[in-house]
């Protein structure tokens, strides 16, 4: 049987046959709150959960133990296991069982209050965008997303429902990444603009047929680089959110709703609104105004008939850092708990590599000498890498607004 997953970081190569056998073990264990760096384990556990009608909560492998304890109540929950017994004799029987499952997949997102909030999805939110058929049979996926995020899951289900190979190309050196792309003749690449920005391509990879961006605003320079490096690839930009799954797919930098969706999208004051019928199920009902949901995304209208628009920026306080939605306030709150810090300000600044980057300024309590490295180490033990300020300046005063609030 064909290969399912290649994960060179964890030295893992798993075929669909092995996966089938692993899923059909008599004494299987399901971990509702698995916290692991092993991609195969994450996918396998997710499948076991869905197939046994259990809810699954997905935790980023790089959440610190403290963050996880805060989100779940205590860290020990990650070790709790439920005994499960399943039996499958073919990949198709797995897919048939999957289609019936009522269990939820829980994802964490950066809420506006600062602490990540749990969003529950039924498998349908992911299946909505999955295309199955003969023409998808031989796709080979270069996987560069986090498997516990919306984008990563979309790719996983697309690949899984078509029995495609997934090759993990994240977190590797440039030469290794190129080596894998060539070795497996990867046809479909899905990654954030940051990933493509940092990819150094020596010779054009003409076997790649499709590239998808997502997660960040991309720019003209990047498209140029992609067209040169992947001359035969079609380029798609995917607009999806953790809360609602995929809403639009575009060709190039401009989006247009499909013909069925065109009356379900509207732009008011340059903000994008979508009709509630486009949204999937959610645990907390979104705030609607007369059946419409405001995405808080600022857009530039390119044409009205047919409607075509470009994304400009987000209005909310979260910023996109290398594909991750980050709330600077969350980091600021943690920095304020460091002993010796009197006032702190964490803010985002535009950055060519990641889109945005966090910086911080801190004022010390009288008589205290602060060290940038020590503060960074402190934050590192409490927060995911993308939420860390890359530079912390120790200052005498932090700019305040007229009302005494810290200036953003």
């Amino acid at each position, binding site marked *: 049987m064909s290969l399912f997953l290649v994960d060179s970081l964890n030295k893992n190569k798993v075929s669909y046959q092995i996966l089938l056998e692993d899923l059909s073990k008599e004494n299987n264990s399901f971990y509702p709150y698995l916290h692991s760096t092993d991609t195969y384990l994450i996918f396998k556990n997710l499948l076991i959960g869905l197939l046994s009608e259990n809810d699954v909560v997905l935790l980023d492998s790089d959440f610190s133990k403290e963050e996880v304890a805060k989100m779940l109540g205590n860290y020990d929950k990650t070790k709790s296991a439920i005994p499960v017994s399943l039996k499958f004799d073919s990949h198709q029987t797995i897919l048939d069982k999957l289609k019936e499952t009522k269990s939820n997949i829980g994802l964490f997102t950066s809420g506006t209050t600062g602490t990540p909030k749990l969003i529950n999805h039924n498998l349908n939110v992911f299946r909505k965008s999955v295309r199955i058929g003969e023409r998808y049979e031989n796709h080979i996926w270069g996987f560069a997303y986090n498997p516990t995020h919306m984008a990563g899951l979309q790719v996983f289900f697309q690949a899984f429902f078509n029995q495609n190979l997934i090759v993990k190309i994240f977190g590797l050196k440039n030469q290794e990444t190129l080596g894998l792309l060539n070795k497996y003749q990867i046809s479909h690449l899905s990654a954030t603009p940051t990933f493509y920005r940092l990819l150094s391509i020596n010779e054009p990879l003409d076997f790649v047929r499709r590239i998808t961006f997502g997660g960040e605003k991309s720019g003209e320079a990047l498209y140029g680089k992609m067209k040169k490096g992947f001359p035969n690839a079609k380029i798609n930009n995917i607009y999806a959110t953790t809360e609602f799954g995929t809403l639009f797919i575009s060709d190039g930098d401009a989006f247009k709703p499909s013909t069925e969706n065109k009356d379900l999208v509207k732009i008011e004051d340059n903000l994008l609104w979508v009709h509630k019928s486009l949204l999937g199920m959610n645990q907390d009902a979104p705030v609607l105004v007369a059946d419409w949901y405001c995405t808080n995304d600022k857009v530039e209208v390119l044409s009205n008939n047919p409607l075509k628009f470009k994304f400009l920026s987000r209005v909310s306080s979260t910023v996109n850092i290398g594909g991750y939605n980050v709330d600077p306030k969350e980091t600021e709150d943690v920095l304020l708990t460091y002993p010796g810090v009197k006032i702190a300000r964490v803010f985002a600044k535009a950055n060519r590599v*990641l889109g945005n980057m966090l910086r911080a300024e801190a004022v010390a309590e009288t008589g205290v000498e602060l060290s940038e490295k020590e503060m960074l180490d402190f934050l590192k033990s409490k927060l995911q890498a993308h939420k860390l300020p890359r530079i912390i300046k120790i200052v005498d005063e932090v700019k305040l607004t007229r009302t005494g609030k810290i200036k953003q």
Partner: protein
Amino acid sequence: MQEKLLEIINTVRTNADMKPVDKISSEMTLRDDLELDSLNLAELTVRIEDEFDIDIFEDGLVETVGEIEGKL
């Protein structure tokens, strides 16, 4: 100038819990030889800009130490 660049690179490395390097050479690649990931590179560009007032990524991806030296 090379000394300052080495200092900055080592600051980024130690912040990422990597050992500082003794010296840098022009052919060294940022991502592979110096083991900098996307977050480290973002930090590097900002520290260099703070020190030298130059945006090294202005014209696109910079891969080696030599390319940085060329822009400074």
